[in-house]
């Protein structure tokens, strides 16, 4: 890869989880450091919650049910799904194809899909 331009070198390091709670940041770090698969779920659920539009009111602390449908229940549009995928790819250093993501419709399916993608056992959906 070529050397980034001076302006890019000058900029602050990008912190993708900078505005997420400390517990989510710590979970992501546990995954990066030790491959802790339980931590993946914490991050995925936080990322899904972050992409839910403001018009959808969710219980503040209750976990999202696995049955929740990204589009029909959580108000995702196709761009939000694309953003979520792009974000997860960067966080976990994986590549997800369109064909793969088109099969994912619910929170539980996304959770299982990311675990599977990272080589971890499937979550109990």
């Amino acid at each position, binding site marked *: *890869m070529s050397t980034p*331009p*001076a*302006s890019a*070198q*000058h*900029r*602050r390091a*990008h*912190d*993708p989880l*900078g*505005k997420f709670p400390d517990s989510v940041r710590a979970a992501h770090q546990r995954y990066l450091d030790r491959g802790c698969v339980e931590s993946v779920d914490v991050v995925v659920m936080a990322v899904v919650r*972050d*992409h839910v*539009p*403001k018009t959808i009111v969710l219980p503040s602390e209750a976990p999202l049910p696995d049955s929740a449908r990204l589009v029909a229940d959580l108000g995702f549009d196709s*761009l*939000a799904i*694309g*953003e979520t995928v*792009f974000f997860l*790819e960067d966080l976990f250093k994986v*590549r997800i194809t369109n064909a793969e993501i088109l099969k994912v419709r619910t929170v539980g399916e996304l959770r299982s899909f990311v675990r599977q993608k990272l080589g971890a056992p499937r979550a109990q959906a």
Partner: protein
Amino acid sequence: MARTSRSAVVTGLGFITSIGTGRDEVVSRLRSGRGGVVPYDFCGNPNLAVKVAAPVPGFVLDSPSWRDWQWPVAYDLPRETIRGMAPHGVYAFCAIEQALADAGLQAADIGTPDTGLFCASAGSAMMLHHHVAELRESGFERGHPMGVVSSIAGTLNFNLAAHYHITGAVAGFVSACTASSHALGYALDEIRLGRQQRVIVVGAEDLNAETDLPFAAMRALSTNPDPATASRPFDMQRDGFVPTGGAVALVLEAPEVAQSRRARVRAEIVGWGQSADGYSVAMSHPEGAGLQRAMQRALGDAGVDPASLDYVNAHATSTPAGDRSEALALRAVLGSASRTLISSTKGLTGHGLSMAGAMEAAFCMLALEEGFVPGNAHLIDPDPACEGLRLPREATACPSEYVMNNSSGFGGSNVCHIFRRWR
């Protein structure tokens, strides 16, 4: 719809600028002559000749990822809106929120077919560069879903129209340093023609290396490292402009609409004119021929004699050629012994490119409302081309009736507006 008034009124103003992020602060800085130019490190390169700029305090937008951005907590910018924005989209959103509050309007009031949104920016070179580099790195297989709408010219209108559920006329203007003046002029026409009852106009620009340093390659930026003198329009020692970012928003309404809802009117826009130089891609015509025509057309459109102008906010950006050509154009239009006071507020703010016209139009309205004329900051030794022009160094008390704003841009584009004090 029936043809309505010859004019439009401005009922709301919003300022996100280097000299203030609210009306009162901007008035105070225009009166006191305290500018927004500061030492500025664009890219960590000590060899860079450009040492100053005029950033907007309270905003940190120096990353291509919105997740790194910071803006004042008073502005509730939802994730589903910011996800598609460029940095100057954040400025513009905040300026519009301010302008709507100033106009006594709620966001819900503008989601009607009678309300339009005209935006001006050059797009975001920083975002475009970042997203294209990311695409290129993957052989163009993998790109961010919001890469296009957060980068290209039009990013302002795409995002703001969606956020505010605008269903009237929506357009973007890309005529560089005349862009938001074009937006304002066409907004006036939309209202005059009865096509819209209200139009939100916003001009905005990023401030960063990708947007501004290409102008250094044209020798258009000041290399004066002293913030106290780098931007000095009309001065013999001027050596280029100082870049700024931010946004200014205006709410234009048909007079009868504003009156029917008992809105407080800031000023009236009574005419505009435009004309091109037909001369050079980047340089102004040496005698400001196009600008003269634009001023005359604006005066004719408003039905105002040049002698009636109390104040002109000049475009003068502090470049040697541009300021000279505008001075000559002003002399030609106003006459050699004009009483009209003239100043360029870019000595305080720096040059905001696409946002300049909206910003300075709004300054004109503050001058009308508050009864003063901003001064020519840092003007010590006026260019002889300015002979006969009245260029106050400091802000001057001046109850004005008519004021004019000038804008000039690449390709020799010129736009002028005439504003009248509301009674």
